[in-house]
């Protein structure tokens, strides 16, 4: 029963965040700030993680393709496929649930426990529009983060293979092999859904939390757990629907 309540309140929160909007002058500032905090500031960690994971994916694939009858270009192919289909959109989103998600929950949660949200409400401002809406808009740029992850990861694979002595023409021809644009559409469709989850689920956990500073920490952890679970389940459903 509790979960059903939560789900109802979650969708109501999303609906409410579009009502009674702040002035455009204010809104624009908030959106730019969120784009900076949530998107731009995530790029470095995403790039670093992607580079090394891409490298590891390529090395492991190479290890498993030890038969001399298999073309080396398969390494590039397998790296590309796993990066575009799963690693960049799903795996990165789970990491972002930790970075962006806990940041959102703790910043909104702190505002809740220090009565800043009440202060907004007393002024006649819709706190959901003020706090949640700009995050939803900022995360429309999230596919950009995932694009960076895709390119950097494949580049990481390329670099690892160069060190391992795989001819670069073989890897590159593998990257270009049997390219199916639908896979890219599938990846970006997932990415957009994950972006929405990343903006709203942590906001929900922060906005409706109760208690003090200690509970802010607990809410952040809980928010990470739920955000990643929801991302994994949505990933499963989308993959079932589109690829199986």
């Amino acid at each position, binding site marked *: 029963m509790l979960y059903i309540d939560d789900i109802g309140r979650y969708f109501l929160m999303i609906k409410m965040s579009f009502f*009674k909007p*702040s*002035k455009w002058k*204010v809104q624009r500032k908030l959106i730019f700030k969120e784009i900076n905090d949530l998107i731009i500031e995530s790029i470095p960690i995403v790039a670093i993680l992607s580079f090394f994971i891409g490298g590891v994916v390529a090395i492991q694939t190479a290890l498993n393709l030890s038969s001399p009858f298999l073309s080396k270009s398969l390494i590039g192919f397998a790296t590309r496929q796993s990066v575009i289909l799963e690693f960049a959109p799903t795996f990165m989103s789970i990491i972002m649930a930790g970075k962006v998600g806990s940041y959102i929950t703790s910043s909104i949660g*702190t*505002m809740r426990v*220090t*009565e*800043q949200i*009440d*202060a907004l*409400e*007393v*002024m*006649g*401002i819709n706190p959901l529009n003020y706090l949640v809406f700009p995050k939803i808009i900022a995360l429309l740029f999230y596919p950009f983060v995932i694009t960076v992850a895709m390119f950097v990861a494949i580049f990481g694979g390329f670099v690892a293979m160069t060190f391992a002595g795989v001819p670069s023409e073989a890897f590159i021809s593998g990257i270009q092999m049997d390219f199916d644009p639908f896979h890219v559409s599938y990846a970006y469709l997932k990415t957009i859904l994950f972006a929405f989850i990343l903006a709203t689920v942590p906001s929900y956990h922060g906005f409706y939390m109760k208690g003090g500073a200690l509970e802010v920490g607990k809410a952040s952890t809980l928010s990470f757990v739920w955000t990643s679970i929801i991302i994994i389940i949505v990933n499963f459903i989308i993959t079932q629907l589109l690829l199986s």
Partner: protein
Amino acid sequence: MIEVKNIIKSFDGSKILKNISTTFEKGKTNLIIGQSGSGKTVLLKCLLGLHQPDSGEIIYDGISNTNMNESDKTLLRREMGMVFQGSALFDSMSVLENVMFPLNMLTNKNEEEIREKAKLVIERVELNNAINKLPSEISGGMQKRVAIARAIVMNPKYLFCDEPNSGLDPKTAIVIDKLIHEITKEYNITTIINSHDMNSVIEIGEKIIFLLSGEKNWEGTNTEILKTNVKSVKNFVYSSELLKKVKKYL
């Protein structure tokens, strides 16, 4: 002036406010006093419209809260300023930005006018030196001043303060009380202050209502409260050792 008529408010079946009626007067500092848990904050939040009473009526200068729609409520809110117990300043904004915030959000004045108006109010609460500091960089007393400045920057008709001097040392507490009192006079505001501090009662209690577990147990002024014979009020007033001793010598 705010008139309260037969307000009842319960949470989860337990009555927190039990049929409260009173009036809060304009240009005066009205105090709601009572022990912790007696329902002061709940009453204040009803007046602010953050809680909807189960029954009863609140009349703001002749305008009743019953059959008010959302936009009426929003308009009424703009006439209200609130100083929260913990100040509730926006911690990512400087003192100046905090005070400019309501003007930025709710008016169509240009940046220059807003800045000027905010600076004027900050000057009034004597914080000119801290204008660019963040809330985390100033003392609790200064944070309260910023909160007061932010609450009055829109020229409200009603000012609400929830335990404005909690967490402050006694001297700073009196300074804050006096500041609220002076501002109430200067701007002719209906000010309502929650407190359990006898210092405030004596200093600025022009009109006092005493809550005892959700009921209005007594009302009067600061001169009357010291002479009252109502036992519960006496217990509250003379709960501090200091005042007990003072009374002995009276």
